[in-house]
């Protein structure tokens, strides 16, 4: 009898539905517009207080600050869409940074970069296989590998930072083209590619279905395990790339970096409208989320707000963003 209770009334059928059907898109566009609006308001607000904030070079610098977290947030979005979570990305960044840093001493820069990405993808593959071949939840698996990868990074690096990164490596990933830093180009390009992948490919469609309802996907003949695992490979690979970018920017590979990157990346992802429960997510939202957090941090620094207070402000911003989102959804 319980099925009776779940019966629902349908909105009246007919011509009105064609318009109503677009509502999904309107909601998504509204959220993106909201995120962009927040960025604009933040930039103008900080600019009013400190006109130097509006300087082109400074704004590009803010984008540069957001690029590493942004790339990590793209990967995290793939994983969150499947209904999982990847806590190991910070450690993966450290591991990839150390490996590409060491490789750069002896190998050409492109090889060192690819090496870093490959290490990240392998770390992600290990996560994906452990998650799909056991019944242990992604949270626990990646909590474990978070520690394992952090330890491996230290072991590989011999406990200390890798220095003497060749200039060629640094120029390739941290140089500027037309005055714009390469990481910013990468960030924008990857956001577009990831968004197309999610919305305009069969892969993205099936990944969304797997996260929305794994049983439905399985009964429709979709290989749920393969799609789930590939999300972690993407997340790991993007973390690997983020690690190499950091090495190029800092001129050194620190095996202990990455811990705070994880939480910022997850914050950017959920701020962008991706649901922790899976099945719903937005790549551009994750990118905007990363930019909002970077803008907030940079702006508060400009206002000489102490780092401790900045942490409090960023944390509050995340919660406020999700509250506003929830209220907006409730009204629709």
């Amino acid at each position: 009898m319980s099925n009776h209770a779940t019966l629902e009334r349908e909105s009246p059928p007919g011509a009105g539905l064609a318009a109503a059907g677009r509502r999904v898109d309107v909601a998504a566009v509204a959220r993106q517009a909201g995120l962009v609006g927040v960025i604009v308001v933040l930039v103008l607000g900080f600019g009013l207080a400190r006109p130097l904030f509006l300087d082109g070079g400074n704004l590009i610098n803010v984008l540069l600050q957001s690029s590493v977290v942004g790339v990590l947030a793209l990967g995290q979005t793939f994983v969150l869409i499947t209904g999982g979570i990847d806590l190991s990305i910070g450690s993966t960044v450290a591991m990839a940074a150390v490996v590409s840093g060491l490789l750069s001493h002896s190998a050409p820069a492109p090889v060192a970069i690819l090496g870093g990405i490959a290490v990240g993808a392998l770390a992600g593959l290990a996560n994906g296989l452990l998650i799909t071949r056991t019944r242990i939840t992604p949270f626990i698996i990646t909590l474990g590998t978070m520690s394992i990868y952090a330890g491996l990074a230290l072991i590989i690096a011999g406990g200390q930072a890798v220095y003497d990164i060749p200039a060629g490596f640094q120029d390739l990933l941290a140089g500027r083209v037309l005055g714009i830093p390469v990481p910013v180009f990468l960030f924008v390009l990857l956001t577009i590619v990831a968004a197309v992948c999610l919305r305009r490919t069969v892969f993205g469609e099936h990944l969304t279905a797997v996260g929305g309802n794994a049983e439905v996907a399985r009964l429709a003949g979709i290989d749920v395990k393969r799609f789930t695992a590939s999300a972690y490979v993407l997340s790991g690979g993007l973390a690997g790339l983020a690690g190499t970018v950091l090495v190029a920017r800092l001129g050194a590979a620190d095996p202990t970096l990455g811990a705070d990157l994880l939480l910022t990346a997850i914050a950017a992802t959920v701020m962008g409208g991706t649901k922790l429960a899976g099945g719903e997510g937005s790549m551009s939202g994750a990118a905007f989320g990363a930019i909002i957090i970077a803008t907030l941090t940079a702006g508060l620094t400009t206002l000489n707000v102490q780092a401790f207070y900045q942490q409090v402000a960023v944390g509050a911003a995340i919660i406020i963003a999700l509250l506003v989102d929830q209220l907006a959804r409730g009204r629709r």
Partner: protein
Amino acid sequence: MTTDPPMLEIRKLSKSFPSVRALHEVDLTAYPGEIHALLGENGAGKSTLLKTLFGVQRPDGGEVWFEGERREFAQPSDALAAGLAMVHQELSLVPQFTAVQNIVLGREKSRGGFVDWSEARRRAAASLARLGFDARIDVPVHRLSVAQQQLVEIARALAVGARLIILDEPTASLTTQESERLFELLRRLRAEGRAIIYVSHRLAEVMELSDRVTVLRDGELVGTRTRAEIADESELVKLMVGRDVAALGVRGEPGAAGEEVLRIEGLSSAEGVSDCSLSVRRGEIVGLAGMVGAGRTELVRALIGADRATGGGVWIRGERVHIGSPAEAVRAGIAFLPEDRKHQGLVLHMSAASNATLIRPPRRHGLLDRREQREQTRALLKRLNANISPDYPVGKLSGGTQQKVVLARWLKTSSDIFIFDEPTRGIDVGAKGEIHALMRELADEGKAIVMVSSDLLEVLGMSDRVLVMRRGRIVAELDRSAMSEEAIVHHAAAT
């Protein structure tokens, strides 16, 4: 017995859900020292009656009188406090808690701020021993058998001082010996002057155990009889079904009997399917009937590889096929429409187009072709007479339209074998007729169709042949001439 005033009196209880009238002016009385059986087909309104009585759902109309007082139970705890207890079919114990913890749950006695476990253990042990409980009381209950868990639940009911005990299909998963012991216990409780309301599909049990029997059909009271007034089980069956089958219109004779498309031999699974064989021919609709829990869904899930088969084989057009996963079933040309559309059929927040093209979405230049996806969906939905936008999120559609979206997905794959699990459950009458028409159309096109259904009218109206399942086995095959409600219920409910 009848000289006492009734303990429970339900007068003209009604309950409707959107588009379904689940209960209509049903009366029921229970006396102290009585075992009262509640009978009816799936969907007759038994569960709704009990849930409404117990405060899980609020009635739309009618009155409940308990021990001479008019009562309105807003929630189960009100009913419990008044002296009613219900042993649910899905037992409602905390699995990780021990028998002792479960029995005193919510009424723990404390001493100096701490739970007095030795006192709790003493009380629980005493009440369990009285019920003939022979397992350990200090292990988590999920490690006990279903029968033992049931005793824990009854002990909990008695511990709160319940005078009226409701049992919803208590013997559904018990062995014969366990059932016998439960009956002994129920008779003892009756002797203590408690009233027992008992739901069962097993007619022989009902005949053996009950003092009176109340039968529901389509949400209405058929009648209440004392045990002495009932001659035999077939009289109960007549009371339960007794409907006009002709109303639905029976499917015309199939054309030339087509060749065999699907054959299953000796299929078994860990989910309780044992040694099932069947064959379906081109253009044929084979109905799978049986009580809830008889293993029908489990059989088709084993067939499509959703559950792992532990024995037997599947042949398609005479060729042995290995189906180890739903993906392989899709490739073998088997379409499966699950019973639970919301949890197994559709990704609710995705659009109708995404859901309808979930299998092999259209691509162009390696990318998903959204425009083509929309066009395909529009065409499929039009064929299914569903007038909705392809962009519409399916979670907001009615049950009937949702089923059409699932059906659209499989029409697109041009499968030859269609498996419908409860194709019209929870669907309003209009859409139901349309789904039936579509199923017939598919059969006329030469598809082989297996239909699991708990709706006897649907089984009789749609099937060319009916297989009846009971306890994981196919126990009867009825062709057109042998098909009747009585025959199906007889085979499905035989002890």
